[in-house]
């Protein structure tokens, strides 16, 4: 082995405390970044996942002004001929009032979000039906799925109960209809229909006197990376219909923008953590250099050049960086694996969408390796300034 590398290794490994301290500093720096990524990126991706699955799809089509008046059937059929499209389904929404008599008491709730779905298509394009924990999804013109939060607000409505829905139609007339509750929807994190009443889209159209309107088409792709392509293809094919097509990221931009700047801030904190690891390494390396004053003098006296001394201590930085990056990445991956396998969530909220971002993982490892070397530069330089006469010191 190269004698400078061997010396670097021995000097480091014979100072176990310092070595472990330095490695720990790098490890913790990396771990913080991994944990931040798992939690915050995981939360972000989980929200995008649920918004995609429940409300928007990979691509969502809406109208520039208000409602899509083109036949939903023809639009869906047209879309489903695109090879990347798995399924598509129309949605219509409104706000209404609900009355329910529970235990002899009349409870009224106003401004309730009402969603109309096409039961047959919806279960293919969206997974929101899976959030129906109790009962079944909407299956007929007079059944309703209630969000669990809403059901609670209405005094604990149960499956099988009868509820009254009051809407104002497009002509300003009040429309009333009774429904039987067929199921209760509850999603971790509340991204699903937890606050809404879900009914058959044709029922909603009838009540609103909008026989063929939809306000969005939710498109599910078999390859999410083709979202932009599908969007562009659609807009190109319907240039004169005032359609708006957006990918899920675009459609939920408002909801996600704040979150993204939060992630950026958290990442910044992570990098500050790395910086403090670097300072820890500077301190530890200074200690190592100070502890080797005489040895450095001896090496110089038997002919080692300043450059050789510099290289020895930079090698030490590289060893610290390499082991630290290895251990840090390993523990980080361990945590990521654990989070993924256990479908980690916080307080019963939505399960984190954990991914292995290999580019970021290797970037982080490389960065901390380089940082350990950079942190060693000043102590190494100090080592080269020690004079050969130091070898003569008797203490």
């Amino acid at each position, binding site marked *: 082995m190269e004698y400078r590398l061997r010396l670097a290794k021995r000097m480091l490994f014979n100072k176990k405390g310092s070595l472990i301290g330095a490695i720990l500093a790098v490890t913790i720096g990396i771990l913080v970044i991994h944990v931040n990524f798992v939690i915050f990126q995981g939360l972000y991706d989980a929200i995008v996942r649920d918004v995609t699955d429940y409300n928007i799809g990979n691509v969502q089509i809406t109208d520039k002004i208000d409602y899509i008046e083109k036949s939903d059937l023809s639009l869906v059929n047209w879309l489903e001929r695109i090879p990347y499209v798995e399924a598509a389904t129309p949605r219509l929404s409104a706000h209404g009032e609900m009355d329910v008599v529970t235990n002899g008491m009349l409870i009224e709730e106003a401004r309730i979000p009402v969603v109309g779905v096409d039961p047959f298509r919806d279960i293919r394009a969206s997974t929101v039906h899976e959030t129906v924990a109790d009962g079944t999804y909407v299956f007929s013109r007079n059944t309703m799925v209630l969000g669990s939060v809403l059901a609670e607000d209405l005094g604990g409505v149960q499956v099988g109960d009868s509820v009254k829905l009051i809407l104002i139609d497009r002509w300003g007339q009040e429309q009333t209809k009774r429904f039987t509750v067929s199921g209760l929807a509850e999603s971790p994190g509340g991204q699903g229909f937890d606050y809404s009443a879900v009914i058959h889209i044709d029922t909603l159209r009838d009540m609103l006197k909008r026989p063929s309107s939809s306000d969005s088409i939710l498109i599910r792709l078999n390859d999410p990376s083709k979202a932009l392509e599908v969007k562009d293809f659609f807009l190109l094919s319907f240039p004169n219909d005032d359609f708006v097509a957006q990918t899920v990221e675009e459609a939920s931009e408002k909801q996600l923008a704040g979150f993204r700047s939060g992630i950026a801030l958290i990442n910044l904190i992570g990098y500050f953590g790395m910086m403090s690891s670097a300072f820890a390494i500077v301190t530890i390396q200074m200690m190592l250099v100070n502890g080797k004053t005489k040895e450095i003098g001896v090496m110089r006296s038997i002919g080692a050049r300043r450059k050789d001394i510099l290289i020895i201590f930079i090698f030490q930085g590289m060893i610290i960086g390499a082991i630290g990056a290895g251990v840090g990445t390993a523990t980080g991956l361990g945590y990521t694996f654990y989070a993924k396998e256990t479908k980690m969530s916080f307080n019963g909220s939505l399960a984190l969408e954990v991914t292995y971002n290999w580019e970021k993982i290797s970037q982080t490892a490389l960065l901390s390796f380089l940082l350990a070397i950079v942190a060693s530069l000043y102590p190494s330089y100090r080592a080269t300034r020690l004079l050969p*006469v130091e*070898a003569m010191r008797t203490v």
Partner: protein
Amino acid sequence: MLEVSGLTKIYGPKDNQVRALDEVSFSIEQGEIALIVGSSGSGKSTLLNMIGLLDRPTKGHIRIDGVDTTTLNDGAISTFRNRKLGFIFQFSNLLSDLSVLENVLLPLQISGRDYTEEDAKELLRAVGLDDQISKRANKISGGQAQRAAIARGLINKPSIVLADEPTGNLDSLTSEKIVELIKSMAKRLNQTFIIVTHDREHFGDVDRIITIKDGKAFQDEQMEITA
């Protein structure tokens, strides 16, 4: 061949100067054993450090094998130390992180030239350490460490070997053996040995004795000082 001329070393700031060496001049022929003697604080170590290029003189010149070493830059001095000079310190100054053999090999490795471990092993055999070569340097006795240091000082076949009180830290029996070793090595290798010592009697016959007194050098080339 070593020529020292007008060598002066002043330590400390202007208002508190110590003139450790004052216009010292002498020369030593190749292959000689020279002792530097004198009372404590007289400037012996200072002189040896200057010759060993461990420190720079304030004034004056040191020529080694015709090269004026005071004109060399730091890199050239390092190379010069590595190839031309060998050091034996009062405390053995082995690198505690390396084994005995690795310590002896170090000057060879620093030189960047091709080498074999055989030379080092042979030298370790010559100083009587062949059974200790793979021990860590901080796990051997003081006398053994000093032998290893001698081997390290000789491995690059330097033209001058400098020793500052090489027996100063050893008991009398061990120091006698070390002196014997140094003298026999010197005879065998035709190298110049410059040795700072407090007890010249130990060394018996030598080629030259330089006495330092208050930073000035006096030479007596007679060799009647025998044990």
